């Protein structure tokens, strides 16, 4: 499925400082994200970056960007922006209605915007996070090698606010060739694959059995750091205190109340509770799309 993009009459991609987009309404929470800051964990800086990396990478690929080019991560959509120049844009992740000054573009494929066009992103009916990529990338200043916002660590640009003007980079990569990426169907109760965590032996056989047998619910306590799950209490075999230990994305950390916290991209570098199991890398994008109130299962 390849196609040359149509070339609108004003599509002389401008270079320099006048390549910007202006935020009219950020929606509930929109941040600049890339693939984060790996390699600084020993200084107390987590990798962080886009929560659903599969959708984030897809949005970049669709506009011909490097997979690490900075884009926008929306939580429950709601973003309204004005493009101050012609640009190629894509939106991936949680499915939202898109309205452009001239038309209604589709998600999961590149579309052309003209100078002055406004894009309004609706609220997704399912899933949680959507990603907007612009050909050339969002070129806010890099902090410690990344342009992404780490709300927990206070690094990178603040969350988007009305009136913010974001610089767009000059496109460098190959022009995009794909015009639509097929998406897997939505599953109301997703099943996430787990693999061994470091402290599985701290838990009873009943806890391990319950982890994969139960239907878990996502509590209201859900953000980029992680989601707190409710279900059967996971009981401990070893009751001692765990000295602080490094954490990973996908870790299921179990506090004393027995309800696991599933860590997402912005998880703290270290944690003080044992990790019973870890969500496999291939299913982390499902974890990042869980909404409060939604149910899920785990399987080994």
């Amino acid at each position, binding site marked *: 499925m390849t196609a040359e993009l149509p070339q609108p009459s004003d599509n002389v991609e401008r270079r320099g400082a006048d390549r910007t987009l202006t935020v009219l309404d950020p929606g509930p929470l929109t941040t600049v994200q890339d693939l984060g800051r790996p390699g600084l964990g020993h200084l107390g800086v987590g990798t962080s970056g886009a929560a659903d990396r599969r959708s984030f990478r897809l949005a970049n690929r669709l506009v011909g960007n490097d997979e690490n080019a900075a884009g926008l991560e929306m939580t429950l959509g709601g973003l309204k922006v004005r493009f101050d120049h012609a640009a190629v844009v894509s939106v991936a992740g949680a499915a939202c209605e898109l309205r452009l000054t001239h038309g209604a573009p589709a998600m999961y494929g590149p579309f052309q915007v003209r100078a002055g066009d406004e894009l309004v992103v609706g609220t997704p009916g399912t899933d949680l996070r959507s990603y907007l990529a612009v050909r050339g990338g969002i070129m806010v200043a890099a902090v410690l090698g990344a342009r992404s916002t780490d709300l927990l660590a206070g690094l990178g640009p603040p969350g988007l606010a009305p009136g913010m003007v974001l610089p767009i980079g000059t496109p460098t990569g190959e022009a995009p060739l794909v015009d639509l990426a097929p998406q897997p169907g939505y599953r109301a109760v997703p099943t996430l694959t787990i693999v061994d*965590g*470091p402290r599985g032996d701290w838990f009873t056989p009943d806890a391990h059995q319950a982890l994969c047998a139960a239907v878990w619910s996502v509590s209201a306590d859900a953000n980029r750091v992680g989601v707190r799950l409710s279900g059967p209490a996971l009981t401990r075999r070893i009751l001692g205190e765990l*000295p602080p230990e*490094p954490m990973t994305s996908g870790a299921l950390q179990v506090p004393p109340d027995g309800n696991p916290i599933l860590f997402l991209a912005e998880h*703290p*570098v270290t944690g003080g509770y044992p990790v019973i199991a*870890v969500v496999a890398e291939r299913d982390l994008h499902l974890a990042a799309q869980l909404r409060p109130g939604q149910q899920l299962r785990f399987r080994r």
Partner: protein
Amino acid sequence: MRILPCGDQAVLAEFEDSGQVIGAHRALMRALPPGVTDLIPAARTVLASFDLRRTSAAVVADWLATASSAPAATEESSRTVQLPVRYDGADLAKVASLSRLSVAEVVARHLGGDYTVAFCGFTPGFAYLTGLDPDLHVARRARPRTRVPAGAVALADEFTSVYPRESPGGWQLIGHTERPLWDLSWDPPALLTPGTKVRFVEVSS
């Protein structure tokens, strides 16, 4: 040392004590193998995160195992940072009562410690210092503060630390330092990195 699984993108190495962790982290940081993206020490463990498309858990585990013979951190191999402190923290009297010592004795014991940065966590540049007098091992506050000022010198459990910037926090505050601990224009941006030796020096008020 033993190797523990930690999902499909990381391997955890567990050591006997913090000195071994610091020595192993220092030895391993000299040459990260291809595909290892982060190497993070904590109290008893070192986590190696990797790109599963570029390497494997088995390869990373073998590499971690080479650190079992690494020398523990020694005085000679570490730099020392002196932090000037004014002992005026909001919890100083409470720490004295919890530890059944006078305020003057709490200050003297804290000043008397030879500290080592065991690891960083919580916020960028927040260093967990080991070497605290056992009589000063106090529990963290039952209700964390929503706002702890930058430079606050604090205690919790077996650790002492300094808050690099204003943040929420549950540690017991005993004083403050004016010395900056985190600056994005430094390389590295953290003053206190794993293995760094720390001495507190009292500034009279």
